[in-house]
């Protein structure tokens, strides 16, 4: 989906196989919408080599080596101030690490990486003078698409992700959860291969957060991307991603790497209460403590 070209006429065979795991249980019926452009998306690995970052005298991030293959969902978990957001910003190309390299595809520079990545910040950062729909359409307008055209391309996503009635609402008229959904759609509309989520639900209450996690899982299932999620919530990391790395307190260093990959067709409740979940959570929490 998020094909931003009018559905191509060449091969309209819905390639459902592209969606690797049949997640997105709310959205299964839409999975077939994946169109040509989606399939042709250039997908590149993220290769992080010996990255170290200092803010002045403070060493925020200790030498990190990490490869994130295309379409993987990785969570970075760690205590506050361990440099996880720094790492995320460095991947995004919003800052250049003081040492080491981050390469996405052939791009090694911050400016080059910026082209591959879209960032969803912790605060929704919706612009109060724009309607929900116009906020989601920002990336298209930035690329020179006319306002009207941008709106008509963003609209199907609103329908699809359960925001249909709220298109013309101003951000102030939306609840926290709704605002985060709009923020996620805005990130999705940027049509980048890599989504960087910086504690996307930290500002929400726990019930809304659980709903949003489920919603996001469904959304990601229908729109596969490489995802790097930064969070301090171990449950969120286990639920949403395939792999978790745990960073130590400052300077952040990779303590442990855990593979998760729960069957996503199970209800959240069952996953969260399963022994495998408890086991992984135990390991993650142990790593966080030392």
């Amino acid at each position, binding site marked *: 989906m998020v094909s931003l070209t009018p559905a191509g006429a060449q091969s309209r065979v819905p390639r459902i196989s592209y969606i690797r795991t049949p997640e997105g249980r709310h959205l299964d019926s839409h999975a077939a919408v994946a169109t040509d452009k989606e399939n042709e998306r250039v997908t590149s690995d993220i290769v992080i080599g010996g990255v170290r970052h200092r803010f002045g005298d403070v060493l925020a991030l200790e030498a990190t080596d990490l490869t994130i293959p295309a379409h993987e969902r990785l969570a970075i978990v760690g205590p506050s101030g361990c440099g996880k957001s720094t790492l995320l*910003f460095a991947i*995004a190309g*919003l800052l250049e690490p003081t040492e080491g390299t981050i390469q996405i595809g052939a791009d090694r520079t911050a400016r080059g990486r*910026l*082209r591959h*990545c*879209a*960032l969803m*910040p912790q*605060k929704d*950062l919706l*612009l*109060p*003078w724009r309607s929900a729909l116009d906020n989601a359409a*920002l*990336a298209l*307008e*930035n*690329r020179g698409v006319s306002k009207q055209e941008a709106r008509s391309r963003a609209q199907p996503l609103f329908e699809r992700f359960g925001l249909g009635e709220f298109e013309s*609402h*101003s*951000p*102030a*008229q*939306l*609840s926290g*959860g*709704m605002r985060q959904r709009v923020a996620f759609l*805005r*990130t999705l509309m*940027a049509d*980048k291969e890599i989504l*960087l989520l910086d504690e996307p639900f930290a500002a929400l209450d726990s019930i*809304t957060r659980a*709903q949003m996690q489920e919603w996001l899982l469904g959304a990601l299932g229908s729109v596969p991307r490489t995802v790097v999620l930064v969070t301090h919530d171990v449950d969120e990391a286990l639920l949403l991603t395939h792999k978790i790395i745990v960073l130590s307190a400052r300077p952040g260093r990779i303590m442990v790497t855990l593979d998760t990959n729960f069957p996503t067709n199970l209800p959240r409740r069952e996953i969260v209460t399963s022994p495998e979940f408890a086991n992984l959570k135990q390991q993650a929490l142990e790593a966080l403590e030392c």
Partner: protein
Amino acid sequence: MLNVETPAVQGPRFGVGRNRASNLVRNYGPAAVLVLIAIAVWEASIRILDVPSYLWPAPSVIVQSMAEDTDVLRSATWVTLKEVLIGFAIAIAAGLLVGIVLHVSRTIRRAVYPILIASQSIPTVVLAPVLVLLMGFGIGPKLVVIALFTFFPIVVNTVDGLGSVDRDYIRMMLTLDASRWSIFRRVEFPAALPLVFSGIRIGATYAAIGAVFGEWAGSDAGLGYEMLQAQGRLDTPQVFSAVILVTLIAVCLFAFVSFVERLAIPWAHGDGTAGGKAME
């Protein structure tokens, strides 16, 4: 879960009208009552103490004088109003332009901003006669004086407003393929508007005083000119008439700016259609 504001149920037409009227009373009632009391006390004390009109005229005498000199005052008001409107428009245009340039170029800001602030300590009133010498008795020096009076709050608020945008918004825009221009036009400029408008509102209150100073320095028409003339004849009631009209110009200009502001940035006022302060 959805915390959507429900729009107030629209009553029948007369109901809405009554609502608006009661709002007016609530907003402006206290000030109106205070002014009426002040006028009453003023009138009574002048009468009781028997103060002569050329020293301190009673409100009734001022009204009478206004009625007698309607033609003079009308044309004088028109002259001053024209100066205020044109001078203020120049100040807004220049203020926005300079503010934007100072925001965009850090080098220019470092060079110009301190000088700009220092220039505020130059009394504009003293400059007025010099300007008259340079530019003559026409509208020119008045426009310059008004613009100088009102320019400063607009520039400062524009620069502050444009610079007040949270870095997070800029980062967000960068990952959404925004160019510098795109960030300016879609984020920084709209975000600056509430502060820009308060700068313009402050400017609006100075504009009329600026016009009077400009006219005092040398002119042959306008409310400031009529004030000087009336003072010379000891026609104090007319001085007061002119002062009242100058005040009215200032109040109307202020109200007009507030009105435009409400139309232009409804999202900054939390009045139903959109709410909340920007950029929290």
